[in-house]
């Protein structure tokens, strides 16, 4: 759910920016409708309905408060969204880290005004591999729980298994999905699984809720702190004035009452405008994982 809100925020930002444009530049009217593209690939199915409802409500609110109109288009597959973005059918594209891992080569050159959703003060997130201390160690495969639809978790599992165990995850784990990271931790705690991969922030929260967890679970492995939940960008051929106004309104988001309420609901700190280079560590990690996977496959053959 948190991820949904993070993604939601990446969409809302441009709306809020457009909404607040006239606050900075007088009563200028923008006859152009901003077309928003949102990629659902990588978003858990059970979250999509809630996500759409939230978007509809936000758009209605937005439309009622300003003459600058916007519409939104959901994409089940990131490939279609990227295609429309490249063909200028949509002015902005947002989506989970999967979108950026798969299509960064097309999006990044076409984009401008990049932003990353922050879950905590830090821009990036670290993932941990947890192990149940009481698990049986003579198993052929060990059960592993991942947060449902979490690309970062899967990416880390692949990288960790390939680099540390020199095999692919399916050979070592029976991978299961938990609805949330916290549930994955609790289920591992209650012996429903041998391992769990969760964001470090979720682990910290779980420890705060019950320090005794550390007596049963141990951190086996840590990812580099290069992962993020989601990101978005605007097309680089938009009016520079409009982009400038979007940037200013982006800064004003966290100060506005509506923006504060929204951030509180989705439980993220906010959106950080980043340079294009900010994607590099993540993309490097993705590339390295792909390389390791390719190496293992070649060795396996």
């Amino acid at each position: 759910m948190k991820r949904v809100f993070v993604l939601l925020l990446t969409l809302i930002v441009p709306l809020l920016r457009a909404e607040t444009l006239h606050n900075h530049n007088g009563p200028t009217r923008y006859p152009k409708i901003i077309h928003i593209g949102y990629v659902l690939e990588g978003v858990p199915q059970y979250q999509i309905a809630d996500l759409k409802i939230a978007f509809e409500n936000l758009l209605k609110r937005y439309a009622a408060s300003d003459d600058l109109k916007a519409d939104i288009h959901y994409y089940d597959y990131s490939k279609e969204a990227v295609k429309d973005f490249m063909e200028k059918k949509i002015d902005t594209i947002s989506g989970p880290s999967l979108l950026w891992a798969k299509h960064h080569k097309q999006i990044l050159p076409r984009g401008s005004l990049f932003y990353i959703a922050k879950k905590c003060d830090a821009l990036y997130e670290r993932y941990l591999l947890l192990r149940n201390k009481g698990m049986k160690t003579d198993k052929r495969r060990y059960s592993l729980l991942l947060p449902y639809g979490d690309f970062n978790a899967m990416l880390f599992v692949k990288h960790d298994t390939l680099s540390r165990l020199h095999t692919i995850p399916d050979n070592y784990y029976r991978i299961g999905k938990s609805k949330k990271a916290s549930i994955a931790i609790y289920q591992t705690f209650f012996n429903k699984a041998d391992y769990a991969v969760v964001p470090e922030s979720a682990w910290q929260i779980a420890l705060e809720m019950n320090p005794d967890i550390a007596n049963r679970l141990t951190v086996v492995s840590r990812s580099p702190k290069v992962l993020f939940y989601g990101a978005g960008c605007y097309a680089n051929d938009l009016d520079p004035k409009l982009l400038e106004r979007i940037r200013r309104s982006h800064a004003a988001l966290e100060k506005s009452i509506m923006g504060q309420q929204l951030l509180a609901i989705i439980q993220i700190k906010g959106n950080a405008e980043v340079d294009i280079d900010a994607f590099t560590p993540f993309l490097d990690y993705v590339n390295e994982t792909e390389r390791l996977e390719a190496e293992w496959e070649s060795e396996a053959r």
Partner: protein
Amino acid sequence: MNRRLFFKTFVAMFGLSFATLLIFSYFFNRQQERMIIQVMEAQARTVAQSIALLGSDAMVTNDQGVILENNLNILKKSPNIRYIVIDPRRGDTIVSTPNGWRIEPLLPRFKAMEKPHSLYAIFKSFLSGGEEVFHYVYPLDFNGFEWGWLHLGFSTEQIKTMRHLIYRQGLMIAGFILLMTLLGSYIFSRWLTIPIIQLNNAAKSAASGKLDIMVQTRRKDEIGELVESFNRMIQNLRDNQTQLRTANRMLEEKVQQRTRELEQLNTQLEEKVKKEVAKSREKDQMLIQQSRLASMGEMIGNIAHQWRQPLNALGLVLQNIQMAHEHGRLDEEYLRKATDKGMKLIDSMSHTIDDFRNFFKPNKSKERFDIAQSIDSALEMVESSFKNHDINVNLQLEPELCALGFPSEFSQVLLNILTNAKDALLERNVNPKEIWIHAFRQNTDIVVTIEDNGGGIDTSVVEKIFDPYFTTKEEGKGTGLGLYMSKMIIERSMNGTIVADNGSSGARFTTRIPAETKGCT
């Protein structure tokens, strides 16, 4: 304006309404308290059912991680829930609070509340940091499978808030009702009592004589009728007063006229009374004169009796002198003796006249006197007459009987009674002729009774014998004034009484006069 009735009515109305309000508020608050608890219970049941529904799959599969996550989410979204405890029949008890969760044995107090049906209680729990909670226990039963129990701890802030809200609303309503009651009581009391107070004041004015008043009212009820009746009554009183004044004026005129007539009559009456009094005095004078004349006759008769014997003796002396002279025995010695004897007789007769004159000489002032001497003095007057008629007098006198008054008059009274007794004895020719005189002291009085054996007084006339001119004697023998004068003397001059009745054999006269305590000297 005296408004005690108004204030009493107002206080009674307001007090009654206020007491009713208090009682109503008490029961209303109790009902509200129950309602709050019922609301809390319903809310707790809803949350419990939601938790059971949300976690039913996880519970059936014993997925404690999902159960825990659900509970923590609920705790996060429901700030009024202080803790959620999942106590499965098999497995660990999970205690979740907004600050964390842990696995620990269930408290005995909680365990005791685990029944087949839901239960609630309000107490302070350490799970909520000592805060008072509404603890709700819900059995987790899935299609007959008793999985365990759910314990929910709700903050009682909601109860307190609702209670506060109810109290505040209740206070506002009570305040409003109080104001309305005050206003209503004031209006009702005024409506009810003002006409009565006006009537009372008008009645007071009417009572003090001011009848130029009218009570105004628009009421058509009984009070309105009362006011109307009062006004009519005042109008009638006014009319009556006017009529009364007119009648009074006429009456006064008549009274004045009558008074004048009466004064005239009174003047005439006074003159008549004076004339009558003068006549009465004249009559009395005549009576007295007649009485004196009678007494004088009596005196002369008595003197005649007294003189009869000495006159005979004197005649014999003179005859003896003549015979002595004829027989030659009249010498000097004989003449001297006869002369001495005749002179003695003449002195005796002269002395008799002095005695009678003194006896009838009236006393000028009251003096102490001896009753026995007065009796003796009276008897001396009649002694010769009584001897002549063989009337025997029996005396029984107590010594030292003294009285204050007029002794001569008292002797006259006795003499009258004795003379009447003599006349009665002679008239009826009784033999022997007896008179009993008894004088004695009785309390502060001296009583003298004179009784004869002459047959008594006819009872038909006994009440008249003291009337003037009443006599039973033959015509020419009695004046009818003796007893009348005796009664006057005893009653008017000596403050006594005299009565007559019949004794055993004759008339009995009883005189009673005050005794003198200082003695006769």
